[in-house]
């Protein structure tokens, strides 16, 4: 009979443990535990990839110095009477440079382009590129899919009778999470 009662009590206690495990933990009395909070958010690293070169295209050699501006949207303007020089038929496409950025969705970042001159070269001949700017207005923010695309333009500074040749050069575009 007594044995039966103890078994019943054990069953009751087990039921209580199942319903309130917290009470059971506290039972020893000399220790107290509370759940703490630990958080770590691993975000996608930011990554920038160059897509298209900044292509000023083919320009007939000018007899006077002047500049050609390729806007980030690909609109060309010229000074120093160079517009006819750029109006010639292009055998390859010209246009602004383009990049894509990938990373943490909805996160803002900052773009840095060269602030000074970039030298394009054709053998020993040089051609100065300046005033680089991007299509970004305000603070760029990665999309909900974690992507962002932008374009880059610059000013090309031609000397009078700039030497004939195919000029190329490189520049760096750096993005940093804000």
């Amino acid at each position: 009979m007594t044995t039966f009662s103890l078994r019943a009590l054990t069953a009751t206690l087990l039921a209580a443990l199942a319903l309130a495990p917290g009470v059971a933990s506290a039972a020893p009395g000399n220790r107290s535990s509370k759940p703490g909070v630990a958080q770590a958010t691993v975000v996608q690293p930011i990554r920038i990839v160059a897509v298209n070169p900044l292509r000023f295209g083919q320009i007939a050699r000018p007899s006077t110095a002047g500049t050609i501006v390729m806007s980030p949207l690909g609109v060309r303007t010229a000074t120093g009477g160079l517009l006819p020089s750029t109006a010639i038929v292009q055998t390859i496409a010209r246009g602004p440079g383009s990049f894509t950025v990938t990373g943490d969705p909805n996160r803002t970042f900052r773009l840095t382009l060269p602030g000074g001159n970039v030298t394009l070269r054709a053998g020993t001949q040089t051609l100065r590129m300046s005033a680089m700017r991007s299509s970004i207005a305000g603070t760029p923010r990665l999309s909900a899919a974690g992507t962002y695309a932008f374009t880059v333009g610059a000013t090309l500074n031609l000397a009078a009778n700039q030497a004939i040749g195919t000029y190329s050069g490189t520049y760096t575009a750096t993005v940093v999470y804000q």
Partner: protein
Amino acid sequence: MKKLILASAIAIAFASPAFAAPGNTSTATGTATATIVAPITLTHTSGAALGFGRFTTGNGGSVTVSPAGAGSVTGEVTLVPGSTNSADAFTVAGDASRSFSIATTGGTVSAGATSMPFTTTASAASATLSAAGTSSFTVGGTLTVAGTEAAGAYTGSFTATVTYN
């Protein structure tokens, strides 16, 4: 136990910047290109001229010289025996294999106060520079004769322009 914790802390301190740097920033190298091509230049062939020849006017008409240099007349204009006609000639230099357009104006030939108007026709409206960057074309024209012009040697000029397409 204390030593163990310290070791962990050091590991974290060193590990954190190493993780942050690659993920927080990224750099790409962009390329910029531009091609400067030879300008187009037009040169008049020395000694060449658009020659309408020697003719009598009658009561007027016209003299036409084809771009190939062949002469023909209309109306009462008559080329005299021994008269020769010629087309004018030009050479072009520039960027290899690039096409260009040719434009020529009309003009007048005059002798003293008397003048006769003419129009011109180039051998082509457009052409393509050779692989060596050269080309050429000729120019013919039509001279209008009123029939009242005095005898004499009439001269004038016109302008030819080539433009890269």
